[in-house]
């Protein structure tokens, strides 16, 4: 019998919790009124007084809820801003470019790699995949090898700047994943790159 009582209490608590978390206040109000009417109606305050108290309580609840929502929104906004800043920073640090049929790092590429190294050392939980890419002139097979050399050149440079090799993975996609589809020098230039893909925090 006692076990059933416990079970009943748990079930009721569960139902109550559900009705609270569902954000629907109507059932809660009804319960309160029932208790009030049953227990204190003959000797208590007037009905007007009760209604006023109830309205005050509801206003306070509403204000609290709105404050909580505002706080939550502010937190989310801050997180979004932080993520956007991070993304913008990583966006700047997402790609370096190469000359045709070359895997040597330009001055500009080395500058970006320096910042990548700083970022990696500041965030020890982060890992990096370097994807080597080529423009579509020449042979697919040779370009797969060239893409590997480009990714390796970037990885070696990061390593000399103190980033542990085990946090860096390299993969070549050769000419198979162009980011720009046209047969123009402008597009070919964009397609000859090493792309940095970050994972972890």
């Amino acid at each position, binding site marked *: 019998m006692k076990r059933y009582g416990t079970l009943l209490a748990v079930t009721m608590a569960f139902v109550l919790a559900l009705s609270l978390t569902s954000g629907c206040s109507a059932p809660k109000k009804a319960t309160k009124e029932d208790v009030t009417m049953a227990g204190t109606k003959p000797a208590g305050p007037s009905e007007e007084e009760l209604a006023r108290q109830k309205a005050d309580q509801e206003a306070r609840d509403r204000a609290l809820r709105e404050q909580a929502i505002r706080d939550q929104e502010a937190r989310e906004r801050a997180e979004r801003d932080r993520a956007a800043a991070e993304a913008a920073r990583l966006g700047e640090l997402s790609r370096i470019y190469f000359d045709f049929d070359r895997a040597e790092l330009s001055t500009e590429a080395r500058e970006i790699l320096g910042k990548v190294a700083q970022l990696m050392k500041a965030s020890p939980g982060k890992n990096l995949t370097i994807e080597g890419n080529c423009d579509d002139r020449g042979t*697919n*097979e040779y370009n797969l090898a060239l893409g590997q*050399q480009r990714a390796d050149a970037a990885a070696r440079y990061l390593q000399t700047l103190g980033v542990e090799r085990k946090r860096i993975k390299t993969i070549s996609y050769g000419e198979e994943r162009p980011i720009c589809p046209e047969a123009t020098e402008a597009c070919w230039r964009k397609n000859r790159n090493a792309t940095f893909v970050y994972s972890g925090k």
Partner: protein
Amino acid sequence: MRKNRIVLFFVSALLLAAAPAAGAKVYINIDSPSAQKFPIAVTTFRNMNDAAGQESLSPWFADTLGKTLEITGFFNILDRKAFLVDQARLGIATEHIQFPAWAGIGAESLVTGGFAVSGRDLTLECRLFDVVQGKLLVGKRYTGRIEERKEMVVRFAQEILIALTGEKGLFDTKIAFSGKRGGSSEIYTVNYDGTEPVKLTNYNSITLSPKWSPDGRQMSFLSYKDGSPDIHVMDLNRKTARRVLSTGRLNLPASWSADSKRMLVTSSKDGSEDIYILSLADGRMTRLTNDPAIDVSPTWSPDGRQIAFVSDRGGTPQIYLMDAGGGNVRRLTFEGGYNTTPAWHPRSNRIAYEGRAGGTFQVMVIETEGGMPVQVSANGGRNENPAWSPDGRYIAFVSRLGGKSRLCVMNSNGTNVRVIHEGLDAYVSPTWSPHLNLY
């Protein structure tokens, strides 16, 4: 080398040709770059038992045989409108042939045929004549189901090729290639005349560089289907693939050994891209090159004693040769700043490759002794990725022109270009099968 080839030719002619005497005379020297197309007349076929409702088969056999021969690029199929006699009505055997009437329109060979249909059973008779000498070269009778008529025609075309060129045609070969569509690439095969395209893989990934094993039963390729560039081998009967090399870095399949047990591969497992021999039974790898530069696309010579490959150790990608063990490395190409994809001619010391010429890429051929390369493909667009047919008479390649990519085949002297497959976004790395003995 040349002597060996002639001996080999006689042996195969004796074994394969129905009329050994025909093997002695080569009517069409298809290795000659100046060879003229051989004029041949193919008559409509005689309805031998006057089977009702089968009249359309008369021109069907003539047209199908004509098309099958024409695609070889060796024949000029004479227009039936120019014919002076109705040979099908007069009779198809030697005693009925009006040789002067055929010589009169310039035919050097004549094909006649007859068919008898009974229910779904078909009997087909085909004859090939030497018009100049007025004699029968080959006569064959085929029996089977009417649905098998195309196969019978191809079988007789094979006989014609053996009788006139001394060697069977490529009717039982296929071309494999990687086709790109919407960001992914898959392996396809297609008959050498462009019929029956089949999509072999469906990985929705990057899948490239198919290579046929010499026994015709397996195909190796590169695929990113498991995340990294690994080498896989597909059993072509069961259509199942297994991964044979995965290192977390770049691995590329190249040519197979003659016994189909070993494979040349490029791998960057030890740092830079180097060439290894991969033993398929135990996965053991033997390193052949050791250079910080790129070494890629190795291919064995037909006798297995040498390897041609691409290296940029001199600053630009060029074709190099080395002995089979990795020693005696020497540079072969010096013309042009970008020469890749060597393909060793199956019967001679010639290498086809893709070379940069005049701001674009063309199919070039160079003797392995060195010297000046010869541009084989015609100017206009980019012509890339050459692959020899097993007889060395044709080259499959990829043509890129006006933003369109097409898989093409040409005769080894660059003539008779025909499109084998088009419609995909791009075509990459064609490779020709060995004879698959389908006919």
